[in-house]
């Protein structure tokens, strides 16, 4: 059973299609984050760098209501299968958030059981739906005492991944508050993109046709 609505928050945004300098810069930053490259003058790992920036600017955002010292963070699994020891950016990001006091612990309990199409490699209409995410995920070894879970991902586009994953968790954790956090929000319309710093709280809603809609 899929949730019809999921609260989410994000810190940054980027433009996958814009041609101006800022848009190109935003894409380069997303690649750095996805590659866990060294960032800033100290060349910190990208996850640590962005978590520090988020912590420094938290008071300018409403994200303190989402990422609290009591929040349990669950890293979003990749859309494909994953071997142990592989680069897993949402897990690195979740760990970095906990080090900044923006979460209590990281519980990597969501596992992909079969590969889905990579969203970046297919046209928008063929991206995996929330149902496909839900059907291809399982919950493993979940044991925690909190009342508040946030699923952490690196990038959110339509929110199908977060909604599918939250629905899977909600199935075995009734009564627990489950929300999502994505470090970066995709802005498909280049006209809407102004600056990477664009913190927000919003919703992912399930539409009648099975697609998802993210606002903002």
């Amino acid at each position, binding site marked *: 059973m899929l949730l019809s609505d999921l609260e989410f928050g994000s810190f940054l945004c980027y433009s996958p299609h814009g041609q101006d300098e800022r848009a190109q810069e935003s894409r380069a930053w997303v*690649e750095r984050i996805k590659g*866990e490259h*060294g960032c800033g*003058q100290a060349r910190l790992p990208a996850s640590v760098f962005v978590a520090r920036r988020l912590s420094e600017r938290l008071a300018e955002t409403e994200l303190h209501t989402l990422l609290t010292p009591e929040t349990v963070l669950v890293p979003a699994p990749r859309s494909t299968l994953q*071997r142990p020891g592989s680069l897993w950016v949402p897990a690195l990001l979740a760990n970095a958030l906990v080090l900044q006091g923006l979460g209590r612990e990281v519980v990597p309990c969501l596992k992909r059981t079969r590969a889905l199409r*990579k969203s970046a490699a297919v046209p928008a209409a063929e991206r995996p739906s929330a149902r496909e995410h839900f059907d291809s995920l399982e919950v493993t070894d979940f044991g925690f005492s909190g009342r508040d879970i946030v699923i952490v991902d690196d990038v959110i586009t339509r929110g199908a991944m977060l909604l599918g994953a939250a629905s899977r968790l909600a199935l075995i954790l009734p009564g627990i508050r489950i929300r999502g956090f994505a470090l970066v929000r995709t802005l498909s319309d280049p006209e809407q993109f102004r*600056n990477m710093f664009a913190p927000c709280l919003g919703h992912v809603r399930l539409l009648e046709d099975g697609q998802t809609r993210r606002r903002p």
Partner: protein
Amino acid sequence: MPNPLVRTPASLLGPLNEVEERFAPSQMFLVGDLGLLTQGRRVAIVGSRRASETGLKRAARLARILAEQSVIVVSGLAEGIDTAGHRAAIAARGRTIAVLGTPVDRCYPPGNASLQDEIGARHLLVSQFPVGQPVQKQNFILRNRTMALLSDASVIVEAGESSGSLSQGWEALRLGRPLFLMRSVVENPDLEWPQEMLDHGARVLAEPEELFDGLPPERNREPADAPF
């Protein structure tokens, strides 16, 4: 052959993340233009030693197209696909890096000695094995991991079920780097490994030009500060 320069991977590539650190060599022995590891984008072209004629042509075409776009072609100096990739990059006036499974003063296969000399003189030779160290079979698996580390993306052109190129493919996936499989490999009904790699995040490469969309930015071109 001049004495090799000794560098750590991080001194050339920038700081490594914890996943990259795991199998990174502690030091590398280098002959040639070190700038090929500090600037530009690098794509590895790998595949079978006993490649088909079609496979060799595909490797050469891919290397030529990459070289024409100023992408550095990385390969392992082995017979077959590797040799085709190096030679085509050089013929197209591009740059190439050979990542060796031997110390830089040895050559395997011996028939590629002149190619190794040319790459050392005008391009770059990389080995993680110090001069004088005996050559062992496992060197070539370690070399493949290093080649994946040094490359922004990897392409498997043609490879059987037991090809050493598969170890590079798996390492690229572990590092979170783009791994492309030539469509002809994916469509070969006799092979099982392509589907397994696709399930773990590899992508199908139908046309060489598709590579350019999947290449990350140069990792050493990090801005001093962030716009957030």
